[in-house]
């Protein structure tokens, strides 16, 4: 089909204002790309998750107990609503690697000796499932094996139940139960220092003294609503109560599914909000651009209508013009979205274990991205176009009525007004007369700087989290967890190890808490009242002092239990004598990991009628490398140690994560914000330039240099954008609070930190963006044929 003359005009006009079009297109592309990337990541994750969960037959519920005969566990299957029950053995174990001084731990899990279709099965990635040959075969989690460079056929040494065992690696595997794996009490996965070890059921029964019994029950429900499931779980708990239930969780509260779901929810809400900012700003900026264009084309519009073109056809011509940046941005967005999507897949594979995660192209999604891109442009143009197109042709052909030259309000304050030089007077008039445009520019600057501030705030918050968690709240280096309650003397044993500067006792008691109808399970950590190693803080970072009686509770848990400081609740320990007591909640503190509870160790011991028991020792080590080394070697031989928590390692992992991931994300986000600033400043400046053509020409004939004219634009842009940034700082802070709130789950609580420097950097970046965009504007001003601008004067 041959192109119509108007089509040709469109192409030429578009080519003539390519800078503006590209500027808008890039904003659109960023919006479209972030939508496509995040939305397809969401779908990729969902697809993979569903597939993985089904393939591994992921359990609906988990019950941890002290010990239960397998027969009793199996009998649960008879309860109505339970489709399948499996009992197994799980233990925290330590591994011994000659090349690693740092403690390495693992969760040991039993699997049937012969492969069968069980609940929570595994997918073997390398090697094989167990064979008949040896008892001591082990299958390792894939990430762990890769990080520690362990291959099929290698042997690993573990300390299980105080005995050294050598295990033969027959394979590596992944499990839907542990898509996200961290060592207990840690926020981040550290693949090299914590892993999964699957061993034969027969072997685990033998080495752990669990012949014919188990300490973990997993199972599937048949149908049932959420409340039905909760009720049934309570029933099961009652059934097995005599065997010492520690914990009972439904799938949605289980750590790995919880983290994955939280990530996905966050991803989807981001996918639906973030692109909006870019698309809305792009639409508004396009509206400015098209308005100006239509204004300039007023007589062309009149002529076309006089020639017999219908209003619709003339309108469509300009609307089509807006399709150009929309389509260009949409296509760019699809490409960029695919690239970003692929990067996100790679990123998720770093943290999550999936059989495979691919960046699939969802045609519907890409099409939607394209349509939304074009749609937002058309929407932005529509109003501007219609305003002029509906005029009678005779009216359109007359020059637009001059804007009512009312003096702006400030001019009334003559004293003040006289203080401004002519250029500033022009700026102030321009800004106040074009209220709509000024508002859009301010809005764009606010959005851009809000995104920058949000990014900085995110980095700050992670930084603050690391800082408070590891430098202020927890000043210990190593936490030693014991499998059983130990006498107080154990503390003295630890203190005698080389390199120990300080060692403090902790008693952890798993409890179920009940306030009215609300129930939660949590761990109460009993610590020394004036601990040197552990300090609690409230939301405002004020120190919280441990009361001599009663609990200090994390904000999240208080919310869940609907309880306020000063009230009491029912507490039942899950281990030992499970006597229910009423205890007061004295204070609130801000926890980072989990929904913590603290109490005075002496009070806790007396509550449990214990004689000074401990089950954890927190240690501060000497900075001396040699002494540390000795300490780490020696503690491995300490009896009854179940886990060693390497706080330093955690901190290092956090810092690395911060540098690695947040670095790129921050650069990307600031880059995205830059497109908003650039697109808006370029467009408004160039539009203003074409409006002010005659004024500029006049200034030039009066002997002003081009840079003096340019300065006026710089001043105007700085004024508008700094005003926008001030709003943006508020908006960004609000978005930061909202985002952090979204990231807060039962597993982690995020606190907002924002360093004052970040505010300053945001403002400086705004200035930088304005100045950079100004360089393009300057070039335009230099090239401006101002003599012609004067000549056009009809």
């Amino acid at each position: 089909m041959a192109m119509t003359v108007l089509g040709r005009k469109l192409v030429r006009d578009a080519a003539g204002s390519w800078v503006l079009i590209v500027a808008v297109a890039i904003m659109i592309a960023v919006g479209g790309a972030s939508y496509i990337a995040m939305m397809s990541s969401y779908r990729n994750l969902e697809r993979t998750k569903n597939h993985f969960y089904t393939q591994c037959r992921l359990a609906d519920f988990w019950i941890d107990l002290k010990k239960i005969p397998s027969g009793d566990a199996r009998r649960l299957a008879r309860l109505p609503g339970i489709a399948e029950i499996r009992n197994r053995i799980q233990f925290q174990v330590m591994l011994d690697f000659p090349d690693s001084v740092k403690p390495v731990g693992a969760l040991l899990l039993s699997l049937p000796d012969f492969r069968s279709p069980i609940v929570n099965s595994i997918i073997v990635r390398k090697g094989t499932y167990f064979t008949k040959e040896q008892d001591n075969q082990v299958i390792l989690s894939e990430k762990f094996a890769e990080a520690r460079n362990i291959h099929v056929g290698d042997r690993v040494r573990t300390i299980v139940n105080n005995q050294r065992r050598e295990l033969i690696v027959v394979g590596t595997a992944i499990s839907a139960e542990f898509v996200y794996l961290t060592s207990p009490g840690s926020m981040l996965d550290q693949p090299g220092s914590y892993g999964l070890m699957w061993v034969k059921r027969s072997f685990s029964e033998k080495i752990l003294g669990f012949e014919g019994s188990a300490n973990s029950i997993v199972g599937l429900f048949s149908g049932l609503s959420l409340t039905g499931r909760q009720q049934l779980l309570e029933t099961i708990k009652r059934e097995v109560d005599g065997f010492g239930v520690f914990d009972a969780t439904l799938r949605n509260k289980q750590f790995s599914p919880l983290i994955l779901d939280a990530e996905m929810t966050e991803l989807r809400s981001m996918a639906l909000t973030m692109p909006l900012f870019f698309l809305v700003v792009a639409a508004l900026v396009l509206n400015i651009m098209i308005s100006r264009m239509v204004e300039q084309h007023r007589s062309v519009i009149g002529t076309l209508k006089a020639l017999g073109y219908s209003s619709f056809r003339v309108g469509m011509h300009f609307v089509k013009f807006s399709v150009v940046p929309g389509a260009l941005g949409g296509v760019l967005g699809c490409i960029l979205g695919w690239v970003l999507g692929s990067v996100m897949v790679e990123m998720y594979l770093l943290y999550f274990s999936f059989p495979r995660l691919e960046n699939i192209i969802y045609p519907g999604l890409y099409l939607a991205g394209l349509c939304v891109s074009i749609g937002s442009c058309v929407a932005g143009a529509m109003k501007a176009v219609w305003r002029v197109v509906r005029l009678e042709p005779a009216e359109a052909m007359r020059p637009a009525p001059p804007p009512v030259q009312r003096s702006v309000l400030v001019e009334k304050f003559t004293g003040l007004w006289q203080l401004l030089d002519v250029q500033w007077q022009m700026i102030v008039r321009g800004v106040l007369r074009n209220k709509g445009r000024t508002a859009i520019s301010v809005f764009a600057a606010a959005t851009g700087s809000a995104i920058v501030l949000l990014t900085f705030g995110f980095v700050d918050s992670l930084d603050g989290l690391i800082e408070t968690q590891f430098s202020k709240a927890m000043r210990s280096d190593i936490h030693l967890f014991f499998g059983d309650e130990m006498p107080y003397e154990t503390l003295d044993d630890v203190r005698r190890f080389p390199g120990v500067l300080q060692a403090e006792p902790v008693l952890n008691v798993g409890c179920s808490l009940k306030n009215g109808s609300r129930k939660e399970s949590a761990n109460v950590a009993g610590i020394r009242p004036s601990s040197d190693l552990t300090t609690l803080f409230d939301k405002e970072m004020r120190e919280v002092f441990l009361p001599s009686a009663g609990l200090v509770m994390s904000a999240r848990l208080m919310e869940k239990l609907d309880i306020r400081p000063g009230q009491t609740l029912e507490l039942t320990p899950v281990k030992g004598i499970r006597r229910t007591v009423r205890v007061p909640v004295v204070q609130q503190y801000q926890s980072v990991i989990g929904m913590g509870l603290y109490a005075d160790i002496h009070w806790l011991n007396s509550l449990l009628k214990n004689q000074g028991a401990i089950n954890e020792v927190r240690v501060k080590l000497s900075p001396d490398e040699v002494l540390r080394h000795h300490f780490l070697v020696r503690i491995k031989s300490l009896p009854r140690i179940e886990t060693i928590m390497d706080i330093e390692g955690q901190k290092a992992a956090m810092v690395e994560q911060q540098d690695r991931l947040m670095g790129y994300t921050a650069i990307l986000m600031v880059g995205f914000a830059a497109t908003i600033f650039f697109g808006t400043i370029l467009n408004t400046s160039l539009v203003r330039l074409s409006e002010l053509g005659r004024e500029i020409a006049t200034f030039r004939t009066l002997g002003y240099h081009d840079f003096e004219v340019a300065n006026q634009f710089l001043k105007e842009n700085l004024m508008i954008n700094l005003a926008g940034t001030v709003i943006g700082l508020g908006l960004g802070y609000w978005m930061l609070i909202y985002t952090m709130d979204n990231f807060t789950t039962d597993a982690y609580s995020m606190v907002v930190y924002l360093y004052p420097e970040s505010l300053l950097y945001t403002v400086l970046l705004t200035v930088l963006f304005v100045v950079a965009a100004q360089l393009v504007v300057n070039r335009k001003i230099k090239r401006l044929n101002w003599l012609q601008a004067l000549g056009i004067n009809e």
Partner: protein
Amino acid sequence: MADGIGEEMIMPGAGFKNVAPLVRLENVCRTFFMGEVEVKVIRGVDLEIYAGELLIIHGESGSGKSTLLNMIGGIDRPSSGIIFFNGNELTAYSEKELTEFRRNQVGFIFQFYNLIPSLTAVENVRVATEIATNPMDEAEALELVGLGDRLDYFPSQLSGGQQQRVAIARALAKRPRLMLCDEPTGALDHETTEKILQLLHRINKETETTMVMITHSSALLAVSDRSVTLSDGKISGGRHRRAG
């Protein structure tokens, strides 16, 4: 739709008054509102325009000549009064019918040419022919106005007189029944004015197109069929060269 238009044979030449007029204005008024102020520009004009004639409208600047012409051409609507075109009530046309009318029946020529800057001469003509029902070839139209060798020039590459000739070709090319010229030579020098007016006169005679022209130039007065003067928003007499 402007049905029936163009089917009736219009007799050219003398004795215009004996046939039904192509255009008839009955008590046409036009009032503009500028904020609070009401400006009555046309205050009851009765006028008949005959097929094939060349009618000249005189009047002082600001007397409302352009306003009147715009209403005749269907690019503006009267505040009151009726305009008939070829027996059809133009003033009752819908937006769509009016567009159709402009597309096929009227050719406009403006003082400032109103060419589209990003289109070449031939493309500027094509803008009109592309939507007309029975147009001329664009090159032929440009040939007629003596621009056969400037087809691919952009308006900025043409002189004022040449640009106006492109505009004339644009109006001509769709073979309109009615050609409306609003000071077509207003922006041109004396010599070029002569040439353009001669060209328009030639077109009027050779194509038998009805032509209404606003001009201050006396060059055409001698050859025009009729001239009327607009003052105080009313037609105040005129000279009828051939009538009666």
